[in-house]
């Protein structure tokens, strides 16, 4: 019986992930050859962050109808295989440029390389491609996006000003294999080391609110003198704040987040969250698209382009 169940599960997973591989492909290809055709390929559209990104791109396209925009994303942030299929489908749709937020910083490089060989301009946003793999293949894919390490450093430094030397803090990390998660952790560490503040614990909560809530509860029990918790995204900061509230430690422990999602803004207003970082999610895809259009016009492959990150603090958010 169990074996039957497992077989069924495998079959169904296969159907669910591949069953739609041809959907949306039937739309007419390339009638208006004059207009550049730009594809925006994102990670999970179930994530508010990427949804905001998509909405920003569509709003931009509405104001700038001189290019045709195709957007698509995967169901699950880690579904690398499905995203590779998406790139292939976009190639089949006679796209001129691809703006991609890769689900994996290495696994998506081969398919993007193939796209480049067929004459498509590729721009990398959100999650930066792995340098070594790119140089091993002898290619350059320009990255347009925020410096996560710098953003985390900004939030960390602002927090450090509220703390004293030798205070104790903890970090709650995102998915450990994600480039932006690693960069944010490094940025927090930079700021803490500079201010000589001790990081007593650094734990992974996979960007998840409920997991961060459980982990924060355990950390504050183990370290009763903790002064602050730095969270690598706002969802985890929300979970952490809820844990502090339940433990009656909101006064003692400060929390910083990252991303500036709408739910975090309400916590900022209530001063339960000290600061967060806005990396202008709605503009990230737009930056990438404008960059790609520039590449199509000039025919060159420029170097990376850094987009702004801004510190949002409890007092500034109104």
């Amino acid at each position: 019986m169990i074996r039957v169940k497992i077989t069924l599960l495998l079959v169904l997973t296969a159907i669910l992930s591949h069953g739609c591989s041809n959907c949306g492909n039937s739309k007419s290809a390339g009638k208006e050859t004059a207009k550049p055709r730009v594809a925006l390929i994102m990670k999970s559209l179930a994530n508010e962050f990427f949804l905001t990104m998509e909405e920003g791109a569509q709003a931009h396209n509405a104001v700038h109808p001189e290019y045709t925009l195709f957007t698509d994303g995967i169901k699950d942030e880690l579904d690398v295989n499905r995203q590779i299929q998406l790139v292939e489908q976009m190639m089949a749709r006679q796209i001129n440029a691809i703006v991609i937020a890769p689900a994996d910083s290495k696994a998506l490089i081969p398919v993007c390389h193939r796209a480049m060989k067929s004459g498509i301009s590729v721009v990398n946003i959100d999650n930066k491609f792995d340098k070594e793999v790119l140089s091993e293949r002898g290619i350059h894919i320009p990255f347009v996006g925020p410096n996560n390490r710098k953003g985390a450093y900004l939030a960390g430094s602002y927090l450090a000003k509220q703390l004293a030397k030798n205070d104790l803090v903890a970090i709650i990390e995102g998915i450990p294999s994600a480039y932006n998660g690693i960069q944010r952790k490094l940025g927090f560490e930079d700021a803490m080391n500079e201010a000589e503040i001790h990081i007593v614990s650094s734990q992974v909560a996979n960007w998840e609110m409920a997991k961060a809530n459980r982990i924060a509860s355990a950390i504050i029990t183990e370290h009763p003198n903790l002064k602050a918790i730095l969270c690598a995204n706002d969802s985890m900061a929300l979970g952490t704040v809820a844990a502090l509230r339940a433990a009656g430690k909101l006064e003692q422990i400060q929390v910083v987040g990252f991303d500036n999602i709408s739910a975090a803004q309400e916590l900022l207003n209530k001063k339960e969250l000290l600061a967060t970082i806005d990396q202008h999610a709605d503009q990230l895809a737009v930056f990438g698209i404008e960059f790609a259009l520039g590449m199509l016009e000039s025919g060159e492959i420029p170097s990376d382009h850094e987009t702004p990150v801004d510190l949002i603090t409890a007092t500034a958010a109104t």
Partner: protein
Amino acid sequence: MYSKRLHRALADYLGLGLALIVLIAFFATTTDYFFTLITFRTIANQIPDAVIIATGMTFVLIIAGIDLSVGSVLALGGAVFGLAITSWHFPLFLAAVLCIAVGMICGAVNGVMVAKWRLPAFIVTLGMLEAARGGAYLVTTSKTHYIGTSVEWITARGMMGLSVSFLIALFIVIIAQFILSYTIFGRSMFALGGNEEAARLSGIPINYIKTAVYTLCGGLAALAAVIHCAKLTAADPNAGIGYELQAIAAVVIGGTSLMGGRGSVINTFIGVIIIAVLENGLVQMGAQDPIKRLVTGAVIIIAVVLDYYRRRP
């Protein structure tokens, strides 16, 4: 006969309880602050949603079914609950009732499909896992909704530092165990899980029982959603991913058989506590994520192996 059964049940509780004590002793000696009242209060206030889901799952596994949709139903229920409070300005109680109703409808759909059309529960609830998650994204437009402090009292501390939600969970465990042990409905569940054909031939309304059990499971998942939202003061469409497997793990650690016909809600409750103690203890030890997963996985497997030996006469 009766005393023998009691003896066996006692041995069951003792075995699990002993495992829990060993775990607690281990963490107490390896970390500075694990063996404190705060840790146990924290754990008690964290597990209510998991306990409530696992209770429903115990019922489903006892009738030899499975429900993979509980995590998604939790997210959908939470989404409806959050929206009812923030956008439609429902009073808390009404929002909770609406949320539970949504969960029961999901569960009833599962139950009717499984009972009436004899479809495999695995497939039906896998479909519901996708559908309810989609519903949660639709309702919330994929955004996290901040509910605010009006729901906080549910997870605030009531008696002896224990939260209202913990007391609710405890109440549900007691009622569920009572239903299992002392009612016709409970007895019929065991009969159905043990041998469906025999149960049918002895006049047990198996379709009715199945539908009722899945409906209950959906309703409990939605009740867990209310508590989950109150704990985080936010409705998150990504909530509850993987909770179905966590619930199944807790139930299995508690010695309920995946083949049906055997199980106890109180043991499930201890199973949930064991998982929570593990997670808290490992965090306090500063163990990294891969180690935590490794250990949790090993504990689940050890529990099943022990169960195999415990079951042999």
